[in-house]
């Protein structure tokens, strides 16, 4: 695991944007009423937001970025880099970040690139984006993260369809000489890649007409090879084993404790998974907020979305020392301890088409 600390950068602001369309688990009649009740209670999703046809991740992130930059008074011409974490890019190629450079009116001198990560993507992306910052060259970075996971799910797969929601986020990062240090730890385990993946559409298994044919799987599940496969128990065991250890090591690395940390923003994978991690670390419930109940699992946007949902536009100054932890697809896991002093956290934004 990498032991990383980053100096002289601050997070100026955070914003998250969700679609207007609300989809309620109570209406998911593919499963029985008792299964829906059990799902809502244990997994924690009661409703989520889903994009309309034609709306994609970059649209949500661009809206979050525009509103954030406007509130911060950041002119587009002052942005030196754009990093976009997503697994639902506009096109296979080129990087959507470059398209966003144009859409957001950023200068042509701006560095722009995508990072293909999901659940861990906000923390890994935050570390990468922050590490670009230096006093003479890249002083301001716009970091975007999100996914429209709904487009990769089979309605007939009860292990994935009711879990995920759509969201995008924007984080503004800048050089600041006396900013508190930020600490990061990351981990990767490619041996377990097939615990959570989409099989067809890359170069390993090129998409063919057969890729779109639905196949039957145990438990009444039907999906095709372009739709997400999730081995829930494997991902669950990975998360409850790896994440508490990483967070404990992070606290030690940053000379911090559970008590000295104001809030823990954990990836909204599913409620019982997060609760298990919280209990193992003995984090008080009031320090571990949720957004999964109303937004579902929103992939790399879940951490910033939970921050906006919890402390958006109020009480941000009372929540300064926070731990972030993202874990899942890859398998990949990353945690950070950062300071939100003077960070503008916007309330959750809604995307208007």
């Amino acid at each position: 695991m990498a032991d990383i600390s980053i100096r002289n950068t601050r997070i100026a602001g955070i914003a998250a944007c969700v679609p207007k369309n609300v989809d309620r688990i109570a209406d998911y009649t593919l499963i029985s009423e008792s299964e829906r009740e059990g799902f809502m209670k244990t997994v924690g999703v009661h409703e989520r937001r889903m994009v309309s046809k034609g709306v994609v991740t970059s649209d949500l992130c661009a809206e979050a970025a525009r509103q954030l930059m406007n509130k911060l008074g950041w002119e587009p011409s002052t942005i030196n880099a754009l990093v976009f974490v997503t697994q639902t890019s506009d096109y296979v190629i080129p990087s959507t970040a470059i398209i966003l450079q144009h859409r957001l009116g950023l200068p042509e001198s701006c560095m722009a690139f995508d990072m293909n990560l999901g659940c861990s993507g906000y923390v890994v992306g935050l570390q990468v984006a922050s590490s670009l910052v230096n006093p003479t060259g890249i002083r301001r970075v716009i970091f975007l993260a999100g996914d429209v996971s709904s487009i990769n799910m089979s309605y007939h797969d009860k292990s994935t369809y009711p879990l995920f929601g759509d969201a995008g986020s924007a984080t503004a990062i800048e050089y600041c000489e006396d900013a508190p240090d930020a600490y990061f730890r990351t981990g990767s385990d490619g041996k377990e890649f097939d615990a959570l993946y989409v099989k067809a559409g890359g170069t390993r298994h090129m998409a063919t007409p057969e890729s779109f044919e639905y196949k039957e799987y145990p438990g009444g599940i039907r999906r095709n090879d372009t739709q997400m496969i999730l081995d829930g128990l494997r991902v669950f065991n990975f998360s409850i084993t790896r994440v508490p250890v990483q967070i404990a090591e992070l606290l030690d690395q940053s000379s911090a404790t559970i008590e000295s940390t104001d809030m823990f923003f954990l990836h909204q994978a599913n409620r019982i998974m997060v609760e298990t991690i919280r209990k193992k670390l003995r984090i008080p419930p009031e320090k571990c907020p949720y957004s999964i109940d109303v937004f579902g699992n929103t992939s790399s946007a879940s951490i910033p979305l939970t921050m906006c949902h919890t402390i958006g536009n109020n009480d941000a100054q009372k929540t300064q020392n926070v731990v972030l932890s993202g874990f899942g697809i890859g398998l990949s896991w990353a945690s950070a301890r950062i300071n939100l002093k003077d960070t503008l956290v916007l309330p959750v934004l809604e995307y208007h088409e």
Partner: protein
Amino acid sequence: MELLINDFISKIENEFEDLTPGSVKPDTNFRNHFDWTSVNALVLFSMINVEYGVTLTAEDL
């Protein structure tokens, strides 16, 4: 050992509202005892991991 089993059973019964306290015995096949789903498996795995530090797998079920 009896104390440990009874404590274990008690913790299982606490996790699942459908289970009547005292209905689960040491030799109960819990998967046949109530409406067993993959979501229930997560609840059981979580309790065992938090309370006993043991990580179960799908094969262990």
